[in-house]
Structure formats: C-alpha cells, structure tokens
C-alpha cells in the first residue's frame, strides 16, 4: 500500500492539543525536529490497528491512518476528494443521521462521544464500527479526532450468541411444555379412570330412579334427566382427558395426505350444509407421502373442519388446500418455538383449512392451545380439542399454525414431515 501523508497542514498547537509530548524544553520544535516528530507520529498511527482520523468541520482529513484505509477501503486522497464522504461511508440514512448527530453534539457540548454505527466500505461490505470522537477546539477551525474500531466480528459473535440463547430458551420452553403435557397426561389418565367408576354407579342409579319416576312428576323427572345429562357431560370431560393423555400413542406410516383429507371430509360432510357452505378444494396432485398416524391426523383434520363449519353458521367458503413447501417459507402465528422442527430448506407438506367465518380475537388466539380453554360455554365443549390437536402435531414433530381475523375468518395450517 502506498505510503500516505497522514499529517497535512496541521499546526503545532493542534498537535500539542492531541497530547503528543514532543515539547520537552518548552520551546516549539521547528525544522528537522518537527519533521522527525511527525515521522514518529506517522509511525505510531501506522501501527495502530484501529482507524484514526483528524478532520475539520468541512470534512477535510488531516490525519487518516492505514487502519482507517484498511477499514473503509478508501485512501485519504479519495476521502478528501469526495464532497460528501459521510454519505459515502453511511449510505443508510439512520447511520448517517447518527454520525451527523455525533458531530453536532461534539460541537455543541464538546464532550467525547461514543457510538456504534454501520459503515459501507468501498467494496460495498457492511461493517459494524465503534467510533470514539473528541473535539479539539481551535481559534480558526475545530478539529475532530476519531478512533474507529471494527467490531463486525464481535457483533456477529454477539448475534450468534443471542440466536443460540433464543434457541436454547425456545427449546427449554418446549421441553417444559412437553414435560408439563406428559405430567398432565399421566394425571389425567389416572383421574379419568377413577372418575369413570363412580360415574358408572351414578348412571346405573339414575337409570333405576328413571323407572321409579313417572313423567307426570314433572320436576322430579326433569331433575333425573338433568343428572343423567350431566353424567354424560362429566364423562365427556374425562374421555377427552383420556384422549389428551393418549395423544402420544402413535403408529406411524407413510400416507397420502390427500386421501386422509378426503376421508376426514367424508366423515364430517353430514355437518356441512351446502349451498350455505361452499367447499373449495385446492389439493396438489404430486405430493410426497407423509409420515403420520392416520387416525390421529384424521382427528386433527376433523377438528379443524368442524371448527370451520361452526364458525360459519350463516354459510361461507371452506377452503381445503394441500401443497408442498421448503421449510424456510414457514410462518407461525399462534405457535411459537416450533421453528426448529424443520431444517432449512427441508421439504414439508402443508394442509390448510380456511373458513370465512367469525374469526378468533387476538386475545383468544394466544390461549387457543391451552388445555380447558373454550369459548363454547359449558355445553359446547371441554376445551381440550385444540390442546389434543397440538399434542398430536407435536408428536409428529410438525407445526400447527392458526391465523385469524375477527369477522374475516380463520386459517389453520398443519405442516408435516415428508416420509
């Protein structure tokens, strides 16, 4: 690299203000001694790894060391020849604003300023730079002494660390969730069995009473019927709990997802009442097989289809789609922390069930997979349906995503691994 004249037109007073101790005798150095001192300073500036500049308010560089040239790719001649070097160095308006603000602050308050910015080098490379600037006031013109430290590698390491930390947190949350679900499952299974036995006795008892009460005894008859229907309700809850606890018992096979979708649709077709609900099928024909438990995935689709139908009491459109994606296209709405289930660019099959119904509020969307969360009231459901569905998809190492807008509709996307 061609040697550069670092110190140019700088006065001895200004050099003194830099703190360079070359005035031992109290007399100003002139001639050879001053030149020698400049050479010494040049040598120091050359070996410094950081970029060091001394510039005036007009942006003219008096000092521009080798470190600065290496950092930016621009020589001092190029920097001085450029009418707006700041814009060249900081094409991003945000960084440019920060750099200019720093100069203004330095001029106004005269205090040292430290900032982190992103510069663009001559080769177009982005570099993170830590700048420490100080003002050297002068009668004729103020000078700015700046030290530029390349912190790109630190920033990258920091970014990687942050990413690793986030991933670790996500995995930890996922593990906690899985353990929690397993614990709930074990508990649910035990409780459900213990509850079913007394329910059996109560139901037989009610059957006995039913025969003893004539329908004419209206109140008593009604109460007996009420007990009976509540036994069934309690039984539904424990059955759902049992089902929830068993989501993990799967038997995987390579299956054609469109066939599973069609058979699920067949099972709920009696609940879909055309022409109020128009079914729009967009199924890709050349999909690879997916590794699934047929019955469980059917259960997922039936649940999503029934929810879609229930969301459209006055009719609407029910879209059923299947297509293939590469995993970097994944988008997750209601579910967080499942991003690592697919490798980058891994092929996956997506099934989408979308309705144009009432939609789900943002608050409810956040709680939608929580066990026992329901908006259907005591007679509508137990609130375990989607918790079970989520559990099933988790066991398939897949992703379930629910996007919804109140009044517009809901889109359920299930992303499954290719066999």
């Amino acid at each position, binding site marked *: 690299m061609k040697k550069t004249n670092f110190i140019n037109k700088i006065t001895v007073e200004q050099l003194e203000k830099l703190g360079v101790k070359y005035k031992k005798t109290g007399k100003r150095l002139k001639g050879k001694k001053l030149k020698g001192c400049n050479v010494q300073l040049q040598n120091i500036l050359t070996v410094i790894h950081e970029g060091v500049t001394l510039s005036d308010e007009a942006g003219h560089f008096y000092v521009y060391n080798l470190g600065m040239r290496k950092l930016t790719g621009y020589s001092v001649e190029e920097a001085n020849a450029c009418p707006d070097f700041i814009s060249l160095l900081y094409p991003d308006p945000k960084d440019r604003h920060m750099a200019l603000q720093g100069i203004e602050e330095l001029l106004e308050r005269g205090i040292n300023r430290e900032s982190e910015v992103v510069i663009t080098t001559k080769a177009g490379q982005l570099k993170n730079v830590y700048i420490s600037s100080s003002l050297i006031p002068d009668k004729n013109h103020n000078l700015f002494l700046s030290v530029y430290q390349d912190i790109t590698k630190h920033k990258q390491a920091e970014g990687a660390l942050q990413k690793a930390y986030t991933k670790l947190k996500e995995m930890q949350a996922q593990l906690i969730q899985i353990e929690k679900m397993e614990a709930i499952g074990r508990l649910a299974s035990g409780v459900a069995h213990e509850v079913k036995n007394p329910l059996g006795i109560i139901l037989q008892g009610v*059957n006995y009473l039913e025969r003893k009460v004539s329908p004419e005894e209206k109140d008593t008859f009604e109460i007996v019927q009420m007990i009976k229907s509540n036994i069934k309700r309690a039984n539904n809850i424990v059955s759902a709990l049992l089902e929830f606890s068993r989501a993990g018992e799967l038997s995987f096979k390579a299956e054609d997802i469109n066939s599973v979708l069609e058979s699920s649709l067949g099972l709920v077709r009696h609940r879909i009442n055309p022409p109020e609900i128009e079914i729009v099928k967009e199924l890709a024909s050349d999909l690879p097989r997916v590794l699934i438990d047929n019955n469980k995935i059917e259960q997922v689709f039936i649940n999503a289809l029934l929810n879609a139908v229930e969301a459209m009491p006055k009719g609407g459109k029910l879209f059923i789609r299947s297509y293939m994606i590469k995993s970097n296209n994944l988008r997750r709405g209601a579910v967080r922390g499942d991003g690592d289930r697919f490798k980058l660019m891994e092929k996956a099959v997506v099934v989408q069930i979308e309705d144009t119904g009432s939609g789900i509020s943002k608050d409810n969307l956040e709680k939608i997979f929580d066990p026992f969360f329901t908006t259907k009231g005591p007679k509508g459901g137990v609130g375990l349906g989607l918790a079970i569905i989520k559990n099933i998809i988790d066991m398939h190492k897949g992703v379930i995503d629910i996007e919804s807008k109140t009044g517009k509709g809901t889109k359920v996307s299930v992303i499954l691994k290719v066999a």
Partner: protein
Amino acid sequence: MKKIMVVDDEPDFLKIIKLNLEETGNYEVMTLSTAKNIIPQVHSFKPDVILLDMRMPSIGGLDACEMLNNDAMGEGIPIIIVSALDKEQDKYMAYKKGVTNYLVKPIESKDLIAAIENCLKYK
C-alpha cells in the same frame, strides 16, 4: 330366568346392577366383590352370562377370564367386560381372552341389558 354373575370390586356398583337387572324380572343376579373364588361360585351358581370388571385387587378381569377358560364349565360362559378402562389395548387383550363384549363405564342400564340379551341369543 337367566342367571347373571357380576364380579366387581365396587360394592355400590354391584348393588345397583343387581337391582336394575333383577327389576326386569328376567334375571337372577349373583354378585362377587372379588374373582378369587370365581370357579367354585360358577360351579354352584351356573351363570348364563358373567359381567367382569377389568381392574380388581389380587385377581384382575383378564386373569379371571384365564381361570374361566381353563375350567370345563367356565369356558363356555359368555363374558362381558364392564370396566372404566377404555384403552384399545385393554379391549384387544380382553377379546383375545375370548370375551364376548367389552363395555366401558359409565353405561346405561338399557345398553347393558341389550348386551346381555345379545350374549344369551348366541349362547
């Protein structure tokens, strides 16, 4: 009158089942709170159908089936499992032991009677 033997460790269940079945006037019911002495009881009562619980202390429903299968009189008697266990695996194991039907608690009295009648029809 057909004879029904009910084996369950829940005394309340035994009591109400006996009441419900006997009230039809079609059945004579014997209840056992354990399957421990099922074979001598079967020999003396000679049931037409046996209702068996799955999970019982000491001898469970499947073991009781095994004991009945190994007994000359017991092997021909239709068995209906009436249990709170509803796992597919439990049902599969029970059917493998030769049970005729598997009903999950809670069960309506009329459904239980229909199941018993079914067994009797094919006996």
